[in-house]
């Protein structure tokens, strides 16, 4: 028997006997959709937490106060704490003044940006150009889109229009001059644009990154006066935030526990007075919990899936035992009966996988459409308000799926199905044919 004949017979069996194969097909489709969704949730949460975790503001611990007398001692203590990427004292930290971009090519002015001090370790990922290195001076990394006018009220009802952005990529490699306002002084400085970061990933169109050494020089030049001495610590990963915070408290460095809330990031969320980062920050643990629930769901669905595969297969084999007996009577060798039925079941698995995937995509589209509908509804009742707020957040989380995991699960399904079919068949086929046809 050649391969094409075997395939032909398998396809014939898989497709023509819909009633019997529905036993496998339907539960398989349902459970695969469940698995796909739980993987999506898990993976989306995971990558979202990682993505927003890259944001320097998410990793910053502020509220470390010091006096010039104990500065050295604190710095020495900090050097012994692991997982710290950057220490920023008040001279190196964000200038209170707002930077206004001038002379953009398309005539737009007043791009209000906020500069964040950075070093080689905390430099954001760039989509073009390069990251900041430790001996850079007067260079900046800017977003691919810079919001041109910060005074416009931006909400979901008043979305940002495309032409209100300045294309950051056009500025790569060029010098831009910026006006830096101090308390009682203004400075004009040229900065070389060395890198562009993905504003959608960082959810930011107004943060620019400048080497902290440069910021220190600017602060000194502006003669900034500080009423209190404070410093910030940037942790390497959001996951380590609590650990480092606890250590700082243990060492007596951190007295007040507080996560820095960045007022610059309230855009796009559009919820009145709700700061995006604070929202996500508050919810980061919720996201982790959701992720864990999704993980639990996917693992348990997978166990159910295996159970279904085994149970339906036993059922199916005994239903069709007479057929197997007839094949034996006709002179089919056990080997061929095995291959044909295993192929048949694999085909059923493939069909259910394809159907499940299409349904999953469809449900996703419908789900997104429904969320959009609810969000865009102008009159939202008070009770719906909370839901709407949550939906904004859900909308922010891109629905991603890890295709390699999907592929692995698919392979495991096929493997289990094949092994399972083989052993059940074997049990049936080893009997006397006269007994098989009577099953």
């Amino acid at each position, binding site marked *: 028997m050649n391969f094409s004949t075997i395939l032909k017979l398998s396809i014939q069996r898989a497709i*023509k006997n819909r009633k019997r194969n529905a036993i496998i097909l339907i539960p398989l489709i349902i459970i695969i959709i469940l698995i796909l969704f739980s993987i999506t949730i898990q993976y989306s949460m995971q990558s979202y937490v990682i993505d927003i975790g890259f944001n320097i503001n998410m990793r910053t611990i502020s509220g470390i106060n010091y006096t010039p007398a104990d500065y050295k001692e604190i710095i020495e203590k900090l050097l012994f704490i692991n997982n710290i990427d950057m220490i920023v004292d008040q001279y190196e930290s964000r200038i209170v003044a707002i930077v206004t971009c001038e002379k953009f090519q398309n005539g737009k002015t007043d791009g209000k940006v906020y500069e964040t001090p950075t070093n080689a370790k905390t430099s954001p990922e760039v989509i073009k150009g390069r990251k900041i290195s430790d001996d850079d001076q007067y260079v900046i990394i800017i977003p691919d889109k810079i919001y041109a006018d910060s005074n416009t009220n931006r909400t979901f009802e008043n979305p940002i229009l495309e032409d209100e952005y300045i294309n950051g990529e056009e500025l790569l490699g060029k010098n831009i001059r910026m006006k830096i306002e101090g308390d009682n002084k203004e400075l004009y400085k040229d900065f070389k644009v060395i890198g562009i970061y993905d504003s959608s990933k960082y959810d930011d169109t107004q943060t620019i990154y400048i080497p902290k050494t440069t910021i220190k020089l600017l602060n000194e030049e502006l003669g900034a006066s500080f009423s209190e001495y404070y410093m910030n610590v940037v942790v390497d990963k959001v996951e380590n935030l609590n650990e480092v915070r606890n250590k700082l408290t243990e060492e007596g460095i951190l007295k007040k526990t507080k996560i820095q809330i960045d007022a610059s990031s309230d855009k796009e969320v559009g919820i009145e007075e709700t700061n995006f980062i604070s929202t996500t920050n508050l919810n980061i643990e919720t996201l982790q919990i959701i992720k864990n629930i999704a993980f639990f769901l996917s693992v348990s669905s997978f166990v159910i899936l295996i159970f279904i595969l085994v149970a339906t297969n036993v059922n199916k084999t005994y239903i069709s035992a007479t*057929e197997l*007996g007839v094949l034996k*009577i*006709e002179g089919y*060798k056990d080997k061929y009966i095995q291959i044909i039925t295993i192929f048949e079941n694999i085909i059923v698995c493939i069909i259910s996988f394809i159907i499940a995937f299409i349904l999953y995509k469809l449900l996703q589209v419908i789900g997104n459409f429904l969320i959009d509908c609810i969000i865009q509804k102008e009159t939202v009742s008070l009770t719906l308000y909370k839901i709407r707020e949550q939906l904004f957040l859900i909308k922010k989380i891109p629905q991603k799926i890890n295709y390699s995991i999907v592929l692995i699960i698919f392979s495991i399904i096929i493997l289990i199905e094949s092994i399972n079919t083989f052993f059940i068949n074997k049990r049936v086929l080893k009997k*006397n044919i*006269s007994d098989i046809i009577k099953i």
Partner: protein
Amino acid sequence: MSKIEIVNGYKEYIKNKEKIVVLNNINTKFEEGKTYAIMGNSGSGKTTLLNILGTLDVLTSGKMLIDSEEILRLKENEKAYIRMKKIGFIFQEFYLNQYMTVQENIMQPMYINKEYDKTAKKQRTNELIEMMGLSQRKKHYPKELSGGEQQRVAIARALANKPDIILADEPTGNLDKNNEQKIFEILNSLSKNGKCVIIVSHSNVVKKYADIILNLEEGKLK
């Protein structure tokens, strides 16, 4: 030369520690070109004997030869080859594949026969359909056919690989008088063409078509 031969055939079943002797020291030969009718009371072991002849079951002791070849010594795959090449089976329940058409049912045994290429398979199928008078029913499914028609499909399927031995276990058990006669006629005509036809039946009608009538009583063939 005899087609099938049983020497000292003995078959017993052990159920709940109780021994049931079904065939007790049977010695018999079946030849080509003849129709045999095996008759006997219910539970006398007719089906058991036929299954043994068709290698669907095995003797507890004794010898069974097909074309002088000792069957008990053969491996499973070799027995499968013999079933494909030499034996055609017909059952009371037809055992047709319900989700396959008449054509597909008849063609199924041909896929494992290397002698048939694609066109030969089609040709043989058409030939058998013609022979059984099922030309109008090619694309029909078994449940759309009458009992008699279904049994004719089963006969066509049994003949697919041109076997020399036809074994029929109560082939007319589910059929009316008219169809019964038709089926026996077909089976009898096969033996006229040189095949060895063995029919198990309760019906007395079979006597008219059989060359040799054997009675199975208390484990012995008479």
